[in-house]
């Protein structure tokens, strides 16, 4: 500002007017409220109605939540504490039951000193899934790996894991984080090996069957390699046959012999000791992992031109979809016993996993068939025009697009299946929702506890299912190729 006009002009502003905020009606919360909640008479009425409902619910349940008791040995003690603290007649939640029995809600009757093993198996599951789920987003994969490594190790230490196992888990987890930075594709090897490792960690026993299974797959691969020059089809058949025959004949005895030579076993845990979320997640993860490939094969088979393949696929899908899951579970738990040779111990969890898998696969097949049907004919014709054979066309052109379209359907099938695992209660397994709650209530101390277990279990189910649904949205965004 110069001094030039200082005498000639009567008023000169020497500073700028400070920027004023926009009128309150046009900013912040007020504007948001006006635009979103009270934009017209209908919207206003709906808003008020919604608020009234929320108020109704909160005013009814708030005192119940606010009067929570965490430290008590029985429901009677809870009631006493509530009456003493908040006056006679006050209602309150008795979370002490969760505090005392949380371990059974999470692990069932799994031996307490071995809780670290399922935790480790779950941590490794995250490592095995990370390269599959987040193959293109390095940042997220890094976060997932590091968080699950830290969580797993901390939880294992808290659950009293022996140092050897802690060191083993640390080596695997930290190794995975490092490898993910350097040679990410190597992580997929771990993903492929994970099923064997996970089964061993959960059920325990000898490690040799796992090694023998791997060896027989290796021999099958060798057979394929030797014959692939002669005929690819023959090589495929030979490879599969060698592996299957070795599984049926050789794996059991060989593993026993090897175990006698070099003992390599950890404490075995029976299937009937599984329960709670351990059971749900085991069945859910196995069912999800198996039903997707099976569903894809069924969907392709259903669209096949070959009469027999098509008919078999249609029959299978329609039969399974026409039968309630509970019926299949009853068949698994009761009917099979009549037909199997006496003394066969066909693991009940395995039976349930098989039934849940074929059930989910039938639905999955229809979801994927929807995706296949949504592809324009041009895509199929283009694949043919390029001279690709059937499998290459499916693998390179058709399935990537069809699966992308079907993601929401696939994930809702997964979520539905995961929630359906609670139905195993009807075949005498302890699902977290009813199975565990029933026997917890059968103890006189907790008889009469009703809502608390439901809320606790429901919250955990919500967290898992909501994560799955969020992941599916993330995947859809990531795979979006149309430029909208």
């Amino acid at each position: 500002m110069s001094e030039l006009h200082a005498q000639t002009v009567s008023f000169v502003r020497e500073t700028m007017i400070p920027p004023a905020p926009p009128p309150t009606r046009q900013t912040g919360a007020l504007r948001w409220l006006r635009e979103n909640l009270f934009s017209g008479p209908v919207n206003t009425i709906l808003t008020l109605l919604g608020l009234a409902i929320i108020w109704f619910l909160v005013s009814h349940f708030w005192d119940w939540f606010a009067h929570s008791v965490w430290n008590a040995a029985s429901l009677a003690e809870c009631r006493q504490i509530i009456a003493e603290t908040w006056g006679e007649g006050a209602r309150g939640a008795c979370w002490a039951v969760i505090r005392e029995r949380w371990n059974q809600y999470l692990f069932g009757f799994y031996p307490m000193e071995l809780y670290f093993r399922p935790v480790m198996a779950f941590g490794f599951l995250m490592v095995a899934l990370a390269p599959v789920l987040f193959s293109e987003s390095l940042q997220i994969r890094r976060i997932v790996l590091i968080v699950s490594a830290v969580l797993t190790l901390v939880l294992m230490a808290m659950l009293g894991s022996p140092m050897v196992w802690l060191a083993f888990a640390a080596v695997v987890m930290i190794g995975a984080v490092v490898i993910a930075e350097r040679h990410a594709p190597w992580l997929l090897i771990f993903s492929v090996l994970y099923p064997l490792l996970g089964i061993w960690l959960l059920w325990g026993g000898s490690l040799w069957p796992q090694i023998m299974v791997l060896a027989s797959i290796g021999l099958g691969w060798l057979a394929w390699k030797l014959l692939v020059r002669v005929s690819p089809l023959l090589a495929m058949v030979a490879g599969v046959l060698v592996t299957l025959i070795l599984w049926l004949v050789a794996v059991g005895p060989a593993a026993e012999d090897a175990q006698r030579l070099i003992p390599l076993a950890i404490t075995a845990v029976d299937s009937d000791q599984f329960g709670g979320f351990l059971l749900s997640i085991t069945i859910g993860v196995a069912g999800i992992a198996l039903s997707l490939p099976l569903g894809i094969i069924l969907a392709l088979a259903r669209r096949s031109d070959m009469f027999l393949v098509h008919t078999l696929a249609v029959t299978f899908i329609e039969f399974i979809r026409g039968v309630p899951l509970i019926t299949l579970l009853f068949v698994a738990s009761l009917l099979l016993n009549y037909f199997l040779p006496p003394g066969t111990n066909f693991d009940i969890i395995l039976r349930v996993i098989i039934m849940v898998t074929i059930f989910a696969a039938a639905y999955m097949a229809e979801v994927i068939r929807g995706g296949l049907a949504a592809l324009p004919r041009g895509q199929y014709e283009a694949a043919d025009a390029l001279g690709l054979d059937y499998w290459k066309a499916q693998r390179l052109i058709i399935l990537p697009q069809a699966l992308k379209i079907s993601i929401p359907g696939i994930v809702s099938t997964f979520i539905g299946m995961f929630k359906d695992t609670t139905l195993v209660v009807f075949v005498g397994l302890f699902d977290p929702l009813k199975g565990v709650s029933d026997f917890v209530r059968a103890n006189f101390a907790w008889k009469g506890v009703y809502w608390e277990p439901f809320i606790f279990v429901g919250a955990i189910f919500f967290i898992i299912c909501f994560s799955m649904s969020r992941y599916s949205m993330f995947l859809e965004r990531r795979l979006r190729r149309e430029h909208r």
Partner: protein
Amino acid sequence: MKKSVLLGTVAATAAFIGGAAMAAEGDTLKAVKARGELICGVNTGLVGFAAPDASGNWAGFDVAICKAVAAAVLGDPAKVKYVPTTGQTRFTALSSGEVDVLARNSTYTFSRDTDLKLDFIGVNYYDGQGFMVRKDLGVTSAKELDGATICIQTGTTTELNLADYFKANNMSYQPVNIDSNAEGEQQYMAGACDAYTTDASGLAATRAAFADPENHIILPEIISKEPLAPAVRHGDNNWGDIVRWTLNALIAAEEYGVTSANIEELATNSENPEVQRLLGASDDLGKMIGLDKDWAKNAIKASGNYGEIFAKTIGEETPIGLARGLNAQWTQGGLLYAPPFR
């Protein structure tokens, strides 16, 4: 060629099914001894009768039977694997050979004994169906329940009994179907039904767990006979004998005053010939059923005689607080009457 394959398949299937049937009827005792473990079907959770604690150890009135049988057969009450069975799976689990004994508060009925091919080996608890109502309802007898809404568990004998009772007394009722005991309590507490009906033992436990037990009464009428009995598969009579006489040994032990505290002493110096025979001090009764001499002694030592088990799990000292009633010894005016050990 085709024919022979077909025939072969048929033959194999027949052999298969035959084999399975054999196993179901075969020598359970041998199988249990070879396994070194008794597989016992229990309830998935019923207050006082079968429930696992926070570390997964099962206890209860029915569980004690499993322990006694395991002690009699294997000499160790801990060698039991508990298979929880639901109302729907219990009998199939037994007849398919998945469990050796079913000790799961199951009512002994004609059709279950004959048509379902079970053998009930004697009653371990005489129950009966009763009603619970709120005191302020002003009802003092089940006969006054005309037109009431009643919470009733579906798929049980109690449902049929209720219909029978109301029909016989020319009354009407409105059923509120529930799926489990916990749900029944919740509905009753919420006022969805005027009366809650189930086995009297269950009513007593439910009432005792209420915040205000003094505001609820259990009506005096018992409208049905519910003899709860452990069961074994039909056809393996030797195994049936073992389980039957294990239960009888527990009952007889109470009658003769043999308890887990004085059993060692009585085994050596009891004057009573019946006690001597029971505890294997004189005759070797165990040999007749394929067990060793100490079978009954081990069974009683497992969790005490019948009276001790009753007192520890559901008796008047426990919160459930059931009186002995029909389940007292015949000398005390009850129905427990063990045949002589001779």
